[in-house]
């Protein structure tokens, strides 16, 4: 009898621990909804969708990296450099052309990360962490060098930018255009991940890279592929990011790696590799966005929010290890 009770108690604590982050944020949302009447307004809903923007795209890309058993800290560098270069090209090659160049550049930088990892034979998360951090320094420095450290203002660009404005402000029914774009990406990447052989190969690679290689899975190409996807998605983020504001700086991408990793892990994709999905990441992004929205509405100071975000990140990583070990 007592044993049963004990069992139930451990089950309950186990459940609570597993969904701790989820539950905490849910409680936060409920509290905000009660305390702040502004929370459940149409205006705030639009706000939420907008906030979804840049982070969600990077997080989708990061999902593949983490499922593949690696990590990518070069995201801030890529975002900063892509944003700067794309904006600077608008005057010469037009808006759409500049965006295409930016996207290609993101994919190329991602590829470069992957190739460096493959060539040097770095096959662990820890090594990937150091190398991509170094790459981030490199990309970030390139962005700083390109503008000599100054920011770049959209209003000074002579070329009209209808696509950018639409991406930043446009609505499709009651959904913002950037959110619709996100849903499209989500759909395509979900199909890619769950239905294609390539998507499955990423899971195998993350699960056991040696076994995958010996079973004929092209693990090296997979590594390059996931970094390319992440770089590409970071470039998409960069474009969405400057579509909403008029100014971009060479350090605009700062902290995106943290928030993306947080969203992925909070969603339930394991840092140990092999397990996870983009749908979970969508969930994770929602939670992270809701959290900042609620904190903003409740009037929590910006820097205190940073502390809480760090706390959520650490807790999420900790719980992930508890769950999967």
């Amino acid at each position, binding site marked *: 009898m007592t044993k049963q009770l004990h069992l139930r108690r451990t089950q309950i604590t186990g459940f609570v621990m597993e969904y701790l982050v989820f539950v905490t944020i849910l409680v936060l949302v409920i509290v905000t909804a009660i305390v702040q009447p502004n929370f459940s307004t149409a205006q705030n809903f639009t706000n939420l969708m907008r906030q979804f923007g840049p982070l969600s795209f990077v997080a989708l890309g990061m999902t593949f990296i983490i499922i593949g058993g690696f990590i990518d800290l070069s995201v801030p560098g890529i975002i900063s450099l892509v944003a700067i270069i794309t904006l600077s090209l608008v005057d010469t090659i037009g808006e759409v052309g500049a965006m295409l160049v930016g996207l290609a550049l993101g994919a190329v930088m991602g590829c470069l990360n992957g190739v460096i990892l493959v060539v040097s*034979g770095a096959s662990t998360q820890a090594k990937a962490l150091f190398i991509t951090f170094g790459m981030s*320094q490199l990309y970030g420095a390139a962005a700083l060098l390109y503008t000599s*450290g100054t920011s770049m203002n959209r209003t000074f660009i002579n070329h009209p930018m209808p696509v950018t404005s639409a991406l930043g402000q446009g609505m499709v029914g009651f959904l913002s255009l950037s959110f619709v774009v996100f849903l499209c990406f989500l759909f395509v990447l979900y199909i890619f991940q769950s239905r294609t052989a390539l998507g499955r190969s990423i899971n195998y690679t993350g699960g056991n890279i040696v076994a995958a290689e010996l079973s004929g899975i092209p693990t090296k190409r997979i590594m390059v592929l996931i970094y390319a996807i992440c770089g590409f998605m970071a470039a998409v983020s960069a474009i969405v990011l400057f579509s909403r504001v008029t100014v971009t700086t060479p350090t605009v991408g700062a*902290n995106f790696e943290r928030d993306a990793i947080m969203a992925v892990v909070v969603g339930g994709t394991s840092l140990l590799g092999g397990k996870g999905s983009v749908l979970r990441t969508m969930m994770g992004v929602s939670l992270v966005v809701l959290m900042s929205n609620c904190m903003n509405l409740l009037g929590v100071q910006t*820097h205190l929010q940073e*502390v809480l975000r760090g706390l959520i990140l650490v807790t999420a990583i900790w719980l992930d290890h508890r769950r999967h070990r």
Partner: protein
Amino acid sequence: MNVAVHTQGNQIRKQVVQALSKQKAVVAIALMLIAMLFSDSNFYTQLNIMNIFRAASPNLIIAFGVTLAVICRGCDLSVGSVMSMSGIIAILLINNGMNMYMAMIVAALSGAVVGFINGFLVVHQKTEAFIITLGMGMLVKGIALQLTDANPVPTSRDKALAFMRISNGVFLGIPHIMWYMLILGAFTFWLLRFTSFGRNCYALGGDYEVAKYSGINVVRTKWIAFTLTGTYAAVAGVLLASRMNTGSAIYGDAIPLMVNCGVVIGGTSFAGGTGGVVHSFIGIMVMQLLRNCMNGFGIDPYIQQMVLGVVIVGIICMDCYAIKRKKEDV
């Protein structure tokens, strides 16, 4: 005959290459020192050499701490933020009228607390050290930002002189901060070489399970190592704040990767169980000299950041590549 000579030559070459690759940090230092002969700067002056060591001192102190974590097959990426935070705490407390020494001790203890939490998460809860300390670093940086509202905080004017003397004073012609570095280095050297705690660190870094079944209290040992790592970083933070007379949340941004890379360059391996204080000292000096070299040649700071990125990537890649070659060369 000819063949024999040829293979002998090969062997000698191989041995030389091997010896050099083992001491690549020393080789790097030598190359940079030679390069500096050709720069116009006043590199080879007593003052400058002293300056290099003084500038490297906080990083070295952090590196000694990180060495402890790395020998235990851990890693600490939160050291940069801890350094920033402790400096800020020390200055804020002093400004609020706390006794200076008391404030410094409290600041150092704040690092011990972060180290303790790292230890709990890594050792007790068995999370991956790299990723969890990265997260802790972000959390601690948030605290540092919150404390300062993202502005640098100077010591209030009446206390500045006394506080600055802690690091900037000179004893026997050598700045205090270097003395602290040397003392902590010697202490860590002794700790790792001659105490059973140190030997146990090597043992559990070499093989955790074996150490555990041999009756070593592995959890406690590694936990203490992480706590010490945090404490060292906090001490470095206080000393840096004293040297600069300012605390800022962004001092430590580039530190963790710099220091960890320095430690690896020196030859303390992330695989655990090897390396030591001397290794780390050499490794950090490589990073520091690189910076001084670039300054000496008047290189643009953004390009310096680029070079640093390349160096970090290059060094980790070389490490990986060496392991890969070793594996393939069966």
